[in-house]
């Protein structure tokens, strides 16, 4: 398995090096939205004397910087690729190979993150200076962040795959993923840190998986939650990973039987 992965990794790095500009542009997508909402919150905070709840301007900056880092590290776009492959019948050759198609996605995803992390870091340092970000991170937070972001990445990846496998039944995954993205827009901590979502929205956000992909690891990295709270939130992450893992297993098994290539 390790040798297979190494071979896939080399092939993907070679493929990715052909599309350098493209990957940097995609990286911009994970920065621009956080910067937009950061700017908006800074304006709101300034109108209220610099402080909203537990956040001042520099906390917002740190939060949104962590958020774009997390969103880059957890990004998963399989739903789009997979629907295309199913619709075009391109999945067939992949199904015939001895390796589960998910492994190709894993490697593709890893390589993309490896190639974009450095330019992203440069941009984020720039943003940190512009907004004078203040991090409250302790070494313990950093230690917890590693498993937390891994859980988040696993969650994003698995939930993306569950959505993608819906392509076996309907070729309109695009609509489904729009609804998913918009729910994430509200509940994942993009429009506001989870702690600032007003009343019921916050409760809903903590019950849904979206926040555990972005907002939770971002807050842990920023040092915005206490260690016990962080552990609780990570327990939530584990629960959602387990749920999506089993959902994926089930959906894939049933779905693949359903699949017939176009023209078959």
């Amino acid at each position, binding site marked *: 398995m390790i040798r297979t992965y190494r071979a896939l990794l080399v092939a993907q790095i070679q493929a990715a090096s052909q599309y350098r*500009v*493209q990957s940097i*542009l995609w990286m*911009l*997508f994970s920065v*621009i*939205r956080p*910067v*937009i*909402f950061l*700017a*908006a*919150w*800074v*304006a*709101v905070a*300034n*109108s*209220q004397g610099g402080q*909203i*709840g537990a956040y001042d301007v520099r906390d917002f900056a740190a939060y949104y910087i962590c958020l774009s880092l997390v969103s880059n590290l957890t990004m998963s776009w399989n739903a789009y690729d997979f629907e295309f492959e199913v619709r075009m019948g391109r999945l067939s050759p992949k199904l015939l190979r001895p390796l589960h198609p998910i492994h190709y996605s894993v490697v593709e995803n890893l390589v993309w993150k490896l190639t974009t992390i450095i330019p992203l870091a440069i941009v984020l340092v720039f943003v940190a200076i*512009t*907004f004078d970000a203040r991090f409250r991170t302790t070494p313990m937070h950093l230690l917890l962040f590693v498993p937390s972001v891994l859980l988040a990445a696993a969650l994003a990846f698995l939930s993306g795959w569950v959505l993608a496998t819906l392509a076996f039944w309907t070729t*309109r995954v695009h*609509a489904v993923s*729009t*609804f998913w993205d*918009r*729910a994430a*827009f*509200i509940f994942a901590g993009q*429009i*506001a840190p989870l702690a*600032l*979502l*007003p009343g019921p*929205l916050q409760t809903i956000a903590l019950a849904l998986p979206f926040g555990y992909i972005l907002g939770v690891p971002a807050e842990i990295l920023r040092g915005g939650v206490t260690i016990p709270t962080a552990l609780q939130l990570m327990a939530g992450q584990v629960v959602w990973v387990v749920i999506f893992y089993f959902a994926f297993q089930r959906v894939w098994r049933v779905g693949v039987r359903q699949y017939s290539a176009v023209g078959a």
Partner: protein
Amino acid sequence: MVRYVRLLQLFFRTELQYELEYRLNLVLEIIQTVVVTGTSVAAILVLFSYTTILNGWDLSAMLVLLGCFYLVQGFGELVLQPSFEKFMEHVRLGTLDFALLKPASAQFLVTVRNFQVVQLAQMGLGAIVVAVGLSRIPSIGLAEAIGFPIALLCGFGLIYALLLALSTFAFWFVRVDNLMALYWSFMDAGRFPVDVYPGWLRVTLSSAVPIGVAVTVPAQVIAGRLDPLGLGLLMLGTIAAFVLASWFWRLGLRSYTGASA
């Protein structure tokens, strides 16, 4: 001129017929648009649950701005994005010849040829959001009422000029999808007034990628924050951008070689 209007109608009608073949898809797309707009309004409401004023913009003005954002974005996706994508494909495949040989302005034939009719829903929703914002403003003067549509049209014109200039690079580099992707990623920034952004981003959004201007200025007119001089400058700027981009397009066209040439 009349001929061009009739051509435009014809293009629109064929694209509408095409889209109406896939009715379920159309309905789904419209629902998606509603969800996207609704969640954006929700995001604004979350922000305004903590303040009554954002950098001098109150909730009504922000709603007008968000509506303008969807109007401008909808306009871009209604006609510009599909047409320019087709245009770049024509350059790549060498099939631009067909447009060049027709007895009408090639620029016209290429840049407003294709429509994503469903994006009218996006523009409609944008208009509704604008209307909701306007209904919360006690009184709107005559100057604002005249200035607003003018500023909005200028916004459309600016976006057109920008995309025309960007896609013209296709004549030399063939694959310029990336440039267009860059535009779309900056587009998102239009949802807030351009003055909330830090210096470097504000400059980018108001000069290099004039999305900020295209969306913010019409909303500014309504909020009574733009004097006639500013509006005049905007009109001049738009005309200049349009002329310049068209000139650049014709320059690029000279480098075009057909498929087998």
